[in-house]
């Protein structure tokens, strides 16, 4: 029976990235994927004949350039199609339509407020140095702030120095970004409610926080980080759906010699006197490896896969208190025609970008209020895209797929409610909400797929339906992610590593956790 150098649990984009880097370093790597298809939450599935849905994650912006380069992803079929702009319809029949064309966006915002049009440019400029400050952190193995070894101290010093070197203005902005709520932060820049609302949305995606919750401002950065190095990594679709990214990484991995087994669920991680030595499959088979890397979230890895007797009690406590709290769902629609928006009738470029139902800051906050008390938003925030307009391959000729990201859909419902009973109600609420802006929607729906947080947990293995494998809240970032003292991809169990979104720098189709952790595995191996 062959022994592998590394066994990777989970064939999501991080697991595959991790595997590819290790194989390229000459390691013998096996990837085990529970489902019939690779990609984890970055997956394309033909849910209805001819209609290919990016079932979970649906846009890409943060995929690390070094990964695209190192794994030569374009050669393996990765093609990012631009997603141009964000269209926000308003109840009063007006709209806000921001596009990548600077002049046009400026004129559009000026239509709402001249001051904001000016401020918008300033804002973009102000964000650039912020991104430059944050980016190296994305590629950094978090230091241990309690550690005394020179490496940790020098890293901390490095950050302190960088902060010190910022101009007073940048420092002020950075501190605010890191601590404020996106609503408060944007209030300082803009006066147009719909502009603030639709911008603040990027601060709450995937979190159980509202636009007025402190700590949501920094997520605004991610949007600009996508754009910072020019159009290529601006927000876009992968051709063939988000699964196209995972497939490209998968092919790169296979080419590098990685062995991938689908429909092979892991049941246990085999631990012998404090060392991980292999995995036991659902079917009882055992596979042995020198190193086990888990790209699934900490709850599966440590609570489900490992006999808790093998873990320190306080570590286990921290894993148990690690917050998932999924807050979003998806509604994927197969359409017979295009939605027709009251405020901008007929087809047009506005349908090619993101369409955001985020008309007012209070609207966003009230959506959160519903969720706090255990119910999905009666009037939710919805982010829609119609990829079939840019990539005809995902729908039959003349037909379309529309992907609706919906927040809030709290995993934990108040007592007496259950997602399986609420599923239809939830789907209808979303469709009703959109119909207020695009009345023809109900008549053009051929099929609909409703994905609740409970579905995300059961089908895609995301605990509590959190799309980032754990909340991106301040106390769960950097050297605190996922567990303080274990933010460096290593675990209390020797030869067991974490390489998923639950590790620094976290979720989103970034690939950074998979890559960084691979480099650490290699460091230890050599």
């Amino acid at each position, binding site marked *: 029976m062959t022994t592998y150098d590394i066994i990777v649990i989970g064939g999501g984009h991080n697991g595959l990235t991790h595997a590819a880097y290790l194989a390229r370093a000459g390691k013998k790597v096996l990837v085990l994927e529970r489902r019939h298809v690779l990609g984890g939450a970055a997956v394309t599935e033909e849910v209805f004949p001819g209609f290919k849905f990016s079932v979970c994650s649906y846009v890409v912006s943060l995929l690390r350039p070094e990964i695209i380069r190192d794994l030569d992803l374009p050669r393996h079929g990765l093609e990012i199609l631009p997603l141009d702009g964000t269209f926000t319809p308003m109840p009063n029949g007006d709209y806000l339509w921001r596009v990548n064309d600077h002049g046009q966006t400026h004129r559009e915002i000026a239509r709402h407020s001249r001051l904001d049009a000016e401020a918008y440019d300033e804002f973009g400029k102000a964000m650039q140095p912020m991104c430059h400050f944050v980016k190296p952190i994305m590629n950094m193995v978090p230091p241990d*702030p*309690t550690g*005394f070894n020179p490496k940790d101290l020098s890293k901390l010093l490095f950050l302190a120095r960088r*902060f*010190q070197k910022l101009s*007073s*203005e940048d*420092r*002020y902005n950075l*501190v*605010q970004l890191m*601590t*404020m709520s996106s609503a*408060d932060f944007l209030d*300082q820049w803009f006066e147009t409610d719909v502009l603030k609302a639709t911008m603040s949305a990027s601060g709450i995606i995937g979190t159980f*926080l509202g636009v*007025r*919750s*402190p*700590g949501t401002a920094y997520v605004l950065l991610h949007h600009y980080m996508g754009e910072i190095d020019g159009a290529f990594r601006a927000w876009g679709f992968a051709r063939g759906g988000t699964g196209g990214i995972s497939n490209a990484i998968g092919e790169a991995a296979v080419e590098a010699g990685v062995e991938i087994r689908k429909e092979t669920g892991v049941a246990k991680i085999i631990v012998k006197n404090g060392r991980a030595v292999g995995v036991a499959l659902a079917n009882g088979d055992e596979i042995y490896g020198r190193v086990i890397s888990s790209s699934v979230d900490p709850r599966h890895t440590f609570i489900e896969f490992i006999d808790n007797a093998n873990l320190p009690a*306080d570590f286990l406590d921290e894993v148990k*208190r690690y*917050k998932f709290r999924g807050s979003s769902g998806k509604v994927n629609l197969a359409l017979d025609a295009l939605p027709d928006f009251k405020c901008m009738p007929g087809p047009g470029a506005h349908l090619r970008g993101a369409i955001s139902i985020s008309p007012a800051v*209070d609207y966003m*906050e009230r959506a959160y*209020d519903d969720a*706090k*008390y255990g119910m999905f938003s009666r009037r939710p925030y919805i982010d829609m895209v119609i990829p079939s307009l840019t990539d005809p391959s995902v729908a039959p000729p003349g037909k379309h797929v529309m992907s609706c990201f919906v927040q809030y859909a709290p995993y934990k419902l108040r007592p007496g409610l259950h997602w399986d009973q609420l599923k239809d109600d939830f789907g209808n609420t979303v469709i009703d909400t959109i119909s207020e802006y695009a009345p023809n929607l109900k008549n053009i729906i051929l099929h609909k797929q409703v994905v609740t947080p409970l579905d995300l947990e059961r089908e895609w293995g995301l605990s509590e339906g959190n799309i980032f494998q754990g909340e991106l*809240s*301040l*106390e769960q970032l950097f*050297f*605190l992610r996922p567990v*303080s*003292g274990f933010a460096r991809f290593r675990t209390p169990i020797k030869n067991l590593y974490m390489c998923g979104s639950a590790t620094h720098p976290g979720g989103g189709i970034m690939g950074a956790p998979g890559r960084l952790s691979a480099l650490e595995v290699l460091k230890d191996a050599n």
Partner: protein
Amino acid sequence: MSNSHDVVIIGGGHNGLVAAFYLARAGYKPLVLERRNQVGGAAITEEFHPGFRASLLAHSAGPLRPEVVRDMQLEKHGLKMITPAVDVTALSPDGRALVLYRDIEKAAADIAKISKSDAAKYREFHAALEKTSRIISKVLTLTPPEISRPSKSDLFGLLQLGRSVRGSGKKNTYDLLRWGPMAIADLVAEFFENDLLRAVIAARGIFGTFLGPWSAGTALVLLLRAAADANPAGGNCFAAGGMGAITQAMAKSAQQAGAEILTGAEVAEIKIKDGAVRGVALVSGEEIQARAVISNADPKRTFLKLMDPVLLSPTFTKRLQNFRMNGTVAKINLALSGLPSFSGLDGNNDAVSGRIHIGPGIDYLERAFDESKYGNFSRAPYLEIAIPSLTDPSLAPRGQHVMSVYMQYAPYKLKNATWQDQRIALGDTVIKTIAQYAPDLPGKILHTQVITPLDLEEIYGLTGGQIFHGELALDQIFTMRPMLDWARYRTPIENLYLCGSGTHPGTGLTGASGANAAREILKDLKARR
């Protein structure tokens, strides 16, 4: 009174008096100018109904920094602090109140009636807070460092801090780092299972803020307060004769040290020439020269009302305008013909001698906050009640009582309503709420005084009705209070300083801001001698 002084202090609130004392002790002759006819700012005792005296605004102290009490010899100047046996009693609709004694073991014993594990966790949380408070109280007395060019003493202070943080061990360091940005609701949930206990502790993280228990960063507010008193639900510091007694003692102490105090002297304008302060002009028209002016007024009042903002850089003004001062607290004082009986406490006067908490669950508190986000005051508010006359009979006629109530959330900015026409409704809401726990209260009310956030601004000079001179939030503390680059009590105007709660640490009635400011100002004054 000569009309030239070396130092003029605008505002005779507790921080102004503390600063005055330290400057006088160092041999200067500070002149404190108080707009109202008595010193004390928000720490005052007034007769609000014949024979009834109340701590009109603040009804319990921070508590004061021990070094301030010591240096100013406040006991010697007549201050007598009262510490009831009970810190807080949390009322619950089902009548099963939670009595948190000052004594941790007694408190734990009462908690054990509801939950054995919570009783144990209460001790554990108390121990944890004691550890973190040792570190944080160091921060409270620290002058926020100069970031671009840290001075030797800055670096030394930070080094000391860093060492005590790391010295506290891996676990505590990580607790501190992890807890700070958390929502208090999450933090208490990590320790406790009982919702009432969670709520009464969480209340400490939201009091006076425009945040709810689910808002990130509220855990830090609790940690800051715990630095003054590590009791999980917070301590309890009444003063004999009401809060005014504290500031009266401070005034005596400052005067004895050589400070001069002038009441009924409202400053109209801070006189500035060539970017440096020259003195102040009073509403009376009188002008007073000074080598240095220290403002105990809040930052916005100081820079936007008491001087011409054009003297400030646009950046500074922008940041100042961004400094959030949204008041959320109203104050209701009741004169009572007798002691109301609280259900579930069957005449246990000890239980109501401390602070009384109404806010029976985390969701209750959060819902109270929700309303304020949309510009309404809470219909089911979070209340903190004190009946100081129980431990201090001097405040009311024999057998009668004074009830002092903080009401939250009462947002300064109301949507489609004004505080003038909401005043009555606010009072009624508070009385109705308390009556649910003390049904006989309404029949005992002789007089009701309602102080709205607007009153706090107009009568007591708290901009936006913000009782802490600026929200306590992650982005408005330490080096960011009141703003980055200007958190060291100095201002862009030469010889103009800040010493109020709008500066670090600025967490209520502790005197720390005044003491820190005085330390920095003395450095400058000595340097110029």
